[in-house]
């Protein structure tokens, strides 16, 4: 990213030769241009801010979409304490997050290190590995996965060669979530690209010096790569956690919106959607949205606290 000087002029080079007044005018003009470019974002913001506060209000109401909301105080939150399906949706979301996020980061780092060996055609490999990330959350790919993991699909066909009767990957409640986790791990591309950029910033002289001292590859990884990459790992971890807590599309498409089989893919956001739009329970859905916000904020804060002990900033 370029430096964020407000004048946009290379400081101290051109500016010195320009008289003060035109400089201010130029600055104002530049500012206007800046705000103009920001305008779409401000307009977009309205569509975020208004529902944001509306949902905060609705969280304390009984709102069935058809009649005006009725203030019920903490009623929705009390109801959440005694909702087995809500507990199930939290369980599904937590398992999904805590299994798939670490695994996908490990895979992403592994592939990034492989690609960092100075191989030929790196841009091509990078694009190929990145592609699933662009597509992974999309409807078409989830449908394709549904087919690949179908009862008569490619995966079970492959297992059949070894005499294994594959399960119903998407229909068996014991396997459906695993299938979605595999799909998530496959979309390791965006953390991988960031890892790759991070790896290229580590000066090679550290490795050369370590090699001269007789450090093994593993030792080099532990003592050079990991510490110097830790800010990047931290960034990827936060990003992946936040997006994983909010998973919706995969569960919705794979189960046809039901969260099935047998509520095994009922992600928190999917249950929230069902409550709001299928069960006419929008006040409850709004309360759920705010609880999710608190959960995500808590995990992010926890991560920042823990970061003190393992993230190494080299400055």
């Amino acid at each position: 990213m370029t430096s964020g000087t407000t004048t946009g002029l290379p400081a101290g080079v051109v500016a010195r030769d320009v008289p003060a007044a035109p400089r201010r005018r130029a600055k104002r003009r530049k500012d206007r241009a800046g705000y103009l470019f920001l305008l779409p974002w401000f307009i977009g913001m309205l569509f975020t801010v208004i529902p944001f506060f509306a949902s905060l209000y609705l969280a304390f109401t009984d709102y069935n979409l058809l009649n005006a909301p009725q203030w019920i105080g903490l009623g929705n939150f009390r109801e959440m304490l005694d909702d087995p399906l809500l507990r199930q949706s939290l369980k599904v979301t937590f398992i999904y997050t805590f299994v798939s996020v670490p695994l996908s980061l490990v895979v992403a780092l592994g592939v990034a290190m492989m690609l960092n060996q100075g191989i030929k055609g790196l841009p091509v490999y990078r694009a190929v590995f990145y592609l699933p990330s662009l597509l992974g959350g999309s409807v078409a790919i989830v449908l394709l996965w549904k087919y690949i993991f179908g009862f008569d699909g490619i995966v079970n066909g492959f297992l059949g060669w070894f005499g294994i009767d594959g399960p119903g990957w998407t229909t068996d409640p014991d396997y459906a979530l695993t299938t979605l986790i595999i799909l998530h791990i496959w979309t390791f591309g965006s953390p991988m690209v960031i890892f790759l950029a991070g790896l290229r910033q580590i000066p090679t002289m550290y490795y050369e010096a370590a090699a001269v001292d007789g450090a093994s590859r593993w030792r080099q990884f532990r003592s050079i790569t990991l510490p110097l990459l830790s800010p990047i790992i931290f960034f990827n971890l936060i990003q992946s956690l936040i997006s994983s807590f909010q998973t919706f599309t995969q569960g919705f498409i794979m189960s046809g919106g039901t969260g099935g089989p047998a509520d095994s893919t009922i992600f928190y956001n999917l249950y929230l959607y069902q409550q709001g739009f299928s069960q006419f329970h929008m006040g409850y859905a709004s309360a759920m949205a705010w609880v999710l916000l608190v959960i995500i904020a808590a995990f992010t804060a926890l991560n920042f606290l823990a970061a003190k002990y393992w993230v190494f900033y080299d400055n």
Partner: protein
Amino acid sequence: MAGLAGLAGLGLSACGRGFGGGDDEPEGGTVQLNMVWWGDAKRAEKTQAALDIFQRKNPGITVKTEYQDSGPYKDKLATRFAAGDAPDLMAMRMDSVREYADRGALLDLTPHSGAVDLSGLSEGARTLAAVGDKTYGVPAGLNAIGFVINKTLTDKFGVQIPDGNTWSWADLSTFSQAVTKASGKKVYGTHFDAATLANLIVFVRQQGEDFYTADGALGVTEATMVAWFDLFNQMRASGAMPPAGFIEDVGASAAASYLAKGSIASQIIPTNNFLVYKEAAGGNLALLRIPGETQARRRGQSVDCPHLWSVASASKHQAEALKLLNFLVNDIDASKATGTTRGVPASSKIAEELKPSLTPDDQLATDYLIGLQGEKLPRSYTYPPGSSKIQSSLESIATEVEFKRQTPQQAAKAFLDAGRKALGK
């Protein structure tokens, strides 16, 4: 930033077909009605043909219609109402009608009998959307569920099709096992969904119970639910039905169904879809009644409708919406244009008039329904609010049974507990 802009562009271009809202009023003093419904392209073509006739006959009214697949329809409709942008005339699911009507969102048609004439409807058809002394919709057509068997497959494997009027659940099982065995498990004898309420309701009625009682409670007993889940466990164990996990959610279209693919030989369908299933399955389908009707304590089958037509109480053009509704129900030209895509016309008079112009296949399905209507069938009651929740618990509990994570006994109890909680009684 570029990524965000790209996403926004995707979002905009993605809402081509579904319905977003009826905001643009045409100029020149005409009234524009907004009508929404679900279905496929074929039904859209037929519906549009009927609407063209309506607009020719009523020059002051234009109809803007929007349709989509049945799955997401419910959510979209709820969103439209929440946004204060209710359509004037809409397809209403039987299990949603009271969710809307009990909250005052639908127009009671009883005081409007002058505008919408319901005298041609049989008692059973008229009361389908009755709540107390109010009526919140008119059946868009009448249908029932029926059992279809792919004759091409039974001929190929040399299996005799039982008598469809008198067969029992045991006959179904025997028949299906024979198909599975003869085909070497290439084709399973039957499959139908344990979690489809329409299927379960027939079974429950055969046991002499009402699934929903007149006062909107659950009438089904635990023993009957156990028997229902047992039926499926036995059929899966004997090979009459495919094993757990075999059947995936493939959407609602006949073309994508397992019957069309030839991996099962029989299934339950709504009778108004007989034609499309017949075409999709290669043109040789037999239509049978649901098993167990003659052995049961009382008749289980009932005359239902694929959906109702309802008018929003918030509609700004109620008079015109009622006019369109009356046209769809009572004008023979409308029924000639739509055919039986939504079932047999609700008005018996129109149904009789339409019959000669139907294809033989349509006549078969129509006769099936006229036959049922002529028989004395116990009345069923409107789905109470909360029934969509019951539907989703049934889905997950049926899956628990399918994968042997719950016994039929545990499942029956869990289902009744969840159902009573959803209904609040």
